[in-house]
């Protein structure tokens, strides 16, 4: 009986907080999909500062990075977000891949170890999100198992998802292929780097929030 009352109270309280606008927005995807680039774009647009560093080397983000109190305004409506940038999820990590980016063996092994820890952290954080942006590199094959696994887990947890097909500024980009791979979801094509179509992304974000 006490448990039921406690659960009821916690649901009411969490409902109140959600209405106040504290929305935990996660950025998920494969390494180098552009999660940090998009988080940086949002932070630059609304706070005038970056959230994290970006690099061509995969697994540059190896820790969860958080930016709180990011107030985004659209059509007179303000919503406060807590942005949670997660390390890219992969099924394999080979330290020798990091050596191709100029890292020495020992350093590459350390980076690989940190990257594995980062992936474990990303997975743990899945349960804590209110809504998630799944970044997909639109120049790559969207049918990768990692994308399917992430989206499947979010659906199983009843967490609203917005799929962002990133890197539309590149010639090889194919947003339609991403849309074809995930026909049941809203897909927005953007370039986090150049800012192309970012307004459509914000529109999609506000629609996503309504689903929470």
């Amino acid at each position, binding site marked *: 009986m006490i448990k039921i009352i406690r659960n009821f109270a916690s649901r009411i309280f969490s409902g109140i907080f959600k209405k106040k606008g504290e929305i935990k927005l996660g950025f998920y995807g494969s390494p180098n999909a552009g999660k940090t680039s998009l988080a940086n774009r949002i932070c630059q647009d609304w706070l005038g500062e970056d959230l994290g560093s970006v690099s061509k080397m995969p697994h540059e983000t190896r820790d969860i990075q958080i930016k709180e109190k990011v107030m985004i305004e659209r059509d007179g409506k303000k919503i406060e977000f807590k942005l949670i940038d997660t390390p890219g*999820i*992969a*099924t*394999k*990590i*080979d330290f020798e891949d990091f050596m191709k980016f100029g890292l020495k063996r020992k350093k590459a*092994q350390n980076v*690989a*170890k940190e990257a*594995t*820890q980062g*992936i*474990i952290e990303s*997975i743990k954080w*899945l349960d804590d999100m209110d809504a998630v942006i799944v970044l997909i590199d639109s120049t790559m*094959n969207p*049918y*990768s*198992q990692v994308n*399917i*696994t992430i989206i*499947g*887990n979010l*659906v*199983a947890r009843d967490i609203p998802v917005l799929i962002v097909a990133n890197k539309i500024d590149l010639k090889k980009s194919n947003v339609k292929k991403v849309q*074809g*791979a995930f026909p049941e979801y809203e897909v927005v094509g953007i370039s986090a780097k150049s800012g192309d179509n970012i307004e459509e992304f914000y529109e999609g974000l506000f629609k996503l929030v309504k689903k929470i």
Partner: protein
Amino acid sequence: MVVKKKSVKKAAKIGKKIGKNASDLMIHFMPYSEIAREDTVGRIKKIMGLVLTNKIIILQGKLSPDEEVRLIENSMMLIGNIRGFQGVEIAAISGENEYKTLFDKVRRNIAKILVGEQDAITIIGPASVVKEITKDPKKLELMLQRK
């Protein structure tokens, strides 16, 4: 599900043992019945046991999203603890998209509840053996590492 230190040590032992025959390519066909009665922990244990012996698994059926994520988590815990282990390659293909009408979808979901998701094939292999699995909606292509 967490892999304990003891399990990691045990897995490391297996890894060393199998290292000798790592150049042999072995494919293990796993009927759904082999994992049907296992819980998540049991399924992951069974799969990881085979992956650590450098076998490529062709599984009848599909893991749940949660099982897939646990498999990734476990793989990450073993990287760096088992010599030469770089994680796994995994891809699944199912007839899910073939079911266009509502009646077909309902029929498929009922079958899924009764006998599990058997109209799918999943390939899982050690990343040191399987370089890449490319997937388009209707086919899977397996690329192996050159020795």
